[in-house]
C-alpha cells in the first residue's frame, strides 16, 4: 500500500490525476463523437445517394479498422496535415498538436461512428405519426428536428449510448501510446520505476472497473428519469 501513498513517496496522487485525465479525455471524445453523429445521422437517413455514401463510408471504415491504427494516423499525421493547411496560408513554422487534442479527436471520431449508428436506429424507431403530426402542424424544419425528433431520439438512444460510452472509456487507454499521461500511461511509468508491473496494471484495471461501474450507475439513473411516463 506504500506504493499508493499520496505525496512524493507513492503513486497515489499521480494515479488520481491520471484517472481525472482519463475521465476528461473520455468526456471530450464522447462530446466530439456526439457532434460527428449529429452531422452524419441526417446524411445517413437522407434520400440522396451521394450523402448516404459519405456517411456509410465513415461508419464502415471507422468501425472496421482497429482503433489503434486510427490513433497512429492522427498521432503521426495530425501535425503534418495541420502544417500543410497552414502552409497554404503562408505559415511555415513547425506546429505541434497537444496529445490531449490528438487523442480526444481520434477517439471522438471512433465514438462518433458508433453514436451515428445509435442515433440512426433511434430515429428509425420513433413512431411515424410523430413526423406526420409535426408536418401537419406546419413546424419549421429546425423546430421539427430540435424540439420534436431530437428529444425522442435522445431518450431512445440512452441505453445504446451507454454502451458507446463504455467503449469510448476503454478506448482512451489506447491513447497512452501517444504519451498522454492517463491511467494506462501513468501505470506504465510507475511499473517501470518500481519494477512492479503486476501491482500497477492490476490497479489500473481496478480504476477502469470503478469508472465503468460508477458511470453505469449514473446512466441507469438517467434512464429511469427519462423513461418516466413510458
Amino acid at each position, binding site marked *: 500500500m506504500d506504493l499508493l501513498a499520496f505525496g512524493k513517496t507513492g503513486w497515489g496522487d499521480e494515479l488520481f490525476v491520471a484517472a481525472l485525465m482519463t475521465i476528461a479525455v473520455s468526456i471530450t471524445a464522447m462530446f466530439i463523437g456526439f457532434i460527428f453523429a449529429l452531422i452524419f445521422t441526417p446524411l445517413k437517413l437522407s434520400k440522396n445517394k451521394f450523402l448516404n455514401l459519405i456517411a456509410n463510408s465513415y461508419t464502415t*471504415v471507422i468501425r472496421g479498422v482497429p482503433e489503434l491504427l486510427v490513433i497512429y494516423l492522427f498521432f503521426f499525421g495530425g501535425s503534418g496535415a495541420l502544417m500543410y493547411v497552414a502552409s497554404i496560408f503562408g505559415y511555415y513554422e513547425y506546429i505541434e498538436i497537444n496529445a490531449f487534442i490528438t487523442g480526444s479527436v481520434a477517439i471522438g471520431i471512433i465514438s462518433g461512428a458508433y453514436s451515428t449508428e445509435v442515433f440512426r436506429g433511434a430515429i428509425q424507431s420513433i413512431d411515424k405519426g410523430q413526423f406526420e403530426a409535426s408536418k401537419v402542424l406546419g413546424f419549421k424544419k429546425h423546430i421539427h428536428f430540435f424540439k420534436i425528433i431530437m428529444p425522442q431520439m435522445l431518450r431512445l438512444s440512452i441505453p445504446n449510448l451507454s454502451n458507446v460510452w463504455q467503449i469510448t472509456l476503454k478506448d482512451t*487507454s489506447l491513447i497512452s501510446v501517444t504519451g498522454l499521461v492517463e491511467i494506462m500511461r501513468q501505470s506504465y511509468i510507475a511499473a517501470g520505476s518500481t519494477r512492479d508491473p503486476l*501491482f500497477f496494471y492490476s490497479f489500473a484495471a481496478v480504476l477502469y*472497473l470503478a469508472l465503468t461501474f460508477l458511470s453505469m450507475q449514473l446512466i441507469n439513473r438517467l434512464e429511469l428519469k427519462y423513461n418516466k411516463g413510458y
Partner: protein
Amino acid sequence: MDIDLIIASFPKLLGGALITLKLLSASMFFGILIGLFFAILRIKNNFLSKIAYGYSYVFRGTPLLVQIFIIYYGFAEIDLIRKTFLWEAFKEPYWCAIIAFALNTGAYTSEILRSAFETIKIGYIEAGKSLGISKKLIFYKIQIPIAIKQSLPAYGNEIILMLKGTSLASTVTLMDITGIAKYIISTTFKPIEVFIVAGSIYLFMTFIIHNVIKFLEKKYSFNN
C-alpha cells in the same frame, strides 16, 4: 500521395496479416470454449454462476490493453509462473497475446451465449421432454444448437471486434498488421498512405467475416 510507398508497403503488411489471422483464429478457438464453459455455469443460479458473472464483468469492464499488459508484464513477477512449465507460454508475447484475447473474447462470448440460452422457447425443451429424451441429450442436441444459431449475429460482431482487438498485439512487440504499419509510418513519416493500405486489409477481412456469418445465418435459419 506516394503511390510507390503504397505499392511497396502492401506485401509487407500482407505478411503481418498472417500473424493477425493466426492470433484471431487461435483466440477465437479458445475463446468459444471459455465462453461456452462460463455460459453453462451461468444457467443455474448458484455460487459458480456468481464467479462466472464476476469473470465476465471484470473482463468486459476493463480495456483489453490492461489485460494484455497484466498478462505479459505482470505475470512475469509471479514465482508460480516463472519457476514452472507455465513460463514457457508466458515468456512468449505471442502466447500472452492469445491468452489475453481468448479470455477477453470468452467473457463477451459467455454473455452472448447466456442470453441465447435464456431466450430459448420453453416449448422446445418441453417437446424434448415429452418425447422422452434424456436431459443430457436435450441439452446437447436441442439447447446448444439453438443457442448457437441464435447467437450467430452477435457472435459475428464479436469476431470483428476481436479482429480489431488483435491490433493490440503490436504493443507487446508482435509484428501484426498494425505493428508493421506503425514501423513503416515511423520510418517514412507517411501515415496516410500506410493507413490506406493497412485499413483496406482490415476492411477486407471484416467484409469476409461479415459475409460468412450472413451466409451461416441464412443456412441455419428455421425458415428454409
